[in-house]
């Protein structure tokens, strides 16, 4: 579904992204992990044609994303609040996104009714503009608008970062559901290793712009990642805990 070749982005002499080759197949659920500055968001932005690559290209369904717009028909993404029109109410925003995909208001209302649990009564009919919502609730709006588009490819950048634990669990089950039951290809970045190994079948580890590990998730993946990120050394509390086990 997605093919990246020699993708490179340099900012002021520093290589931010340098991915030789990456293929993501239809129906895969891919997680992206890496420390701050590893280049995750920059890579996402290049995949969404928001930043011009210095070299290489990203193609989606065999077509270069830069210069074409077909990918917009089946790709839904939420990277940050910059994706939301913040002076609209959530309802107005959903209707707008729905109308871009030729969905009637009744259809949008129906769809949103199905997300009642996920929203936890914080989004709809609250009489607030999106800009007046908390970051976590804005994230819910972003994710919901992605789901509304019924995408074949879903890209989320750190969706777990600002939402409460209950919503994190609900989001995880939604992501698993659309991937397993509806064949949606998902690409998710996160700093939470537990969540990412739980949701994704394949985990990519980025460091200084390069993908240094590409692992199929198994029972040892979480350990492997924790090893890399050095949980033991940085948080002695955790290490003690593990020794007890």
């Amino acid at each position, binding site marked *: 579904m997605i093919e990246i070749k020699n993708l490179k982005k340099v900012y002021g002499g520093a290589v931010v992204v340098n991915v030789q080759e990456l293929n993501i197949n239809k129906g895969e659920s891919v997680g992206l992990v890496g420390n701050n500055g590893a280049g995750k968001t920059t890579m996402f932005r290049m995949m969404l044609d*928001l930043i*011009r690559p210095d070299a290489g290209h990203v193609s989606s369904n065999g077509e270069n994303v830069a210069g074409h717009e077909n990918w917009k028909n089946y790709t839904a993404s939420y990277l940050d609040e910059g994706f939301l029109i913040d002076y609209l109410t959530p309802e*107005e925003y959903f209707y707008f996104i729905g109308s871009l995909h030729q969905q009637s208001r009744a259809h949008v209302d129906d769809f949103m009714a199905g997300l009642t649990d996920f929203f936890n009564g914080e989004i709809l009919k609250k009489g607030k503009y999106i800009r007046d919502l908390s970051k976590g609730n804005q994230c819910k709006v972003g994710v919901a608008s992605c789901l509304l588009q019924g995408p074949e490819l879903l890209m989320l950048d750190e969706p777990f970062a600002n939402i409460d634990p209950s919503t994190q669990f609900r989001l995880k089950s939604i992501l698993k559901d659309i991937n397993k039951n509806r064949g949606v290809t998902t690409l998710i970045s996160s700093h939470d290793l537990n969540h990412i190994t739980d949701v994704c079948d394949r985990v990519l580890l980025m460091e200084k712009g390069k993908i240094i590990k590409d692992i199929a998730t198994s029972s040892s993946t979480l350990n492997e990642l924790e090893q890399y990120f050095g949980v033991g050394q940085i948080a002695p509390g955790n290490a003690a805990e593990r020794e007890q086990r």
Partner: protein
Amino acid sequence: MTSTFLRHELKAFWRSKNTGKSIAVRIVMGLLILYFLAIVSVIGFGLDKFLEKAAGKDMMITYCGIILLYYLTDLFSRLQLQDLPTLRVQPYLQLPVKRNSLVRYLAFTALFSVFNLWPFLLFVPFVFKVIAPVSGGLAAIAFIASIAGLTVFNNYLALYLKRKANLNGWIFLVAAAVIILIGLSDFLWHIFSIRNFSYLFFGNLIHYPVLAIVPVILGAAMYYLNFLYLKDNLYLEELGSRKVARYKNSTDYPLLNHFGNIGDLVGNELKLIFRNKRSRSAFIMGLFIMFYGLIFYTNPKMSGEGYKVFVSMFMTGIFIINYGQFMYSWQASHFDGLLVSKVNFVDFLKAKYLLFTIISTLFLLLTTPYVYFGWKTLVIEIIMYMWNIGVNTTIVLFFANRNYKRMDLSRGAAFNWEGIGSNQWILSLPLLITPFLIYGPLALLHQANTGLALLGLIGLTGVLTRGFWINKLAADFYNKRYTIAEGFRNK
């Protein structure tokens, strides 16, 4: 502390994405200021001669009479032109920086405005040349102190009103209307005379220099009022969120549904305009400009057709100029979202055209009563309306493709002061001048009607060939979109 703030602001200026454009604006600004300073100095140093010629022996009465009159017009032009000093205070609020020093900085830097130089250049030479030799040094000092006091008073009054107006655009309208009414009740209705009132004060000042304390106190009081206002409002953000928010209804513009996706986009943008203070001010400003007709057309000296061309363009096109020149910064905070969404850029541009057309048409309809000043006034208005929606719209959007500066609409408007000021007008100069490049020469050759016809024709051609321009702009945008999006991401 003040020097630190200054250094930070300089850095903000030089490191901004738009430095090139800002420098160009500053240079044009600087040249204009020098030009006006030169004119004002010539008038100031020759004032005694001019007044002698005009009023003879009564020169003192006339001089004293015009001072307050000057300050009234000064206030009016300050309201429209003076820039508010900007400093993004938020990053300093939680630091061990005294609130008072923040506020003092904001209040003090406001004094560095050319507007504060003009009255001195205009009135002080006369004080030295005429008043000092005749009435003595003390009277001269009293005059200078009064002028300084009134200047400071005007400075802070204008800033206070502008700050208030940024929160509520209607305040600007009311203030401007009050000033116009004061002017009209003197010159048109003769209810009272500002000149007599001014003479009453300044005439007595010669004999009782102590009176100078009145304007000085006024100035100090106005400064203090500003100081308090600013200090109070350092909390505004917090106050704003604590306030019980009114239930925000979802709105719908059924008329726009006929335009499909483009209508949706226009609907969104209308919501943007009416739900954000700053864009709302740009709109209300347009309503205010509609009074220009009253100012110009009632004045026999300024009701020539050349003026009508100017005023008509302004009245029907002010929104295009005022709102359009900040495009697409209005949408900076969700620009990434627009780029990845299914919005086709040609549709995006068509929506802009439709928006401008709708609002210009509204302003045209609202100004039709000016037909009272002759049917040709209306004809000129319609011609300039065509020009605005045919030509100016395209120019504005051409520059919008080159605007990379992020604008944060969601931030409280109290500290978002980049709105209405002289810098903004400079950017609109090309828009204001172009029609005169066509009309002016023809009018000089006594072919004014040909000029008007030509303007109308070009405007109409612009409207009819919109499709062509939209494609050109879309292609241009396509090359610039990465830069625009990057600039908008740059907080």
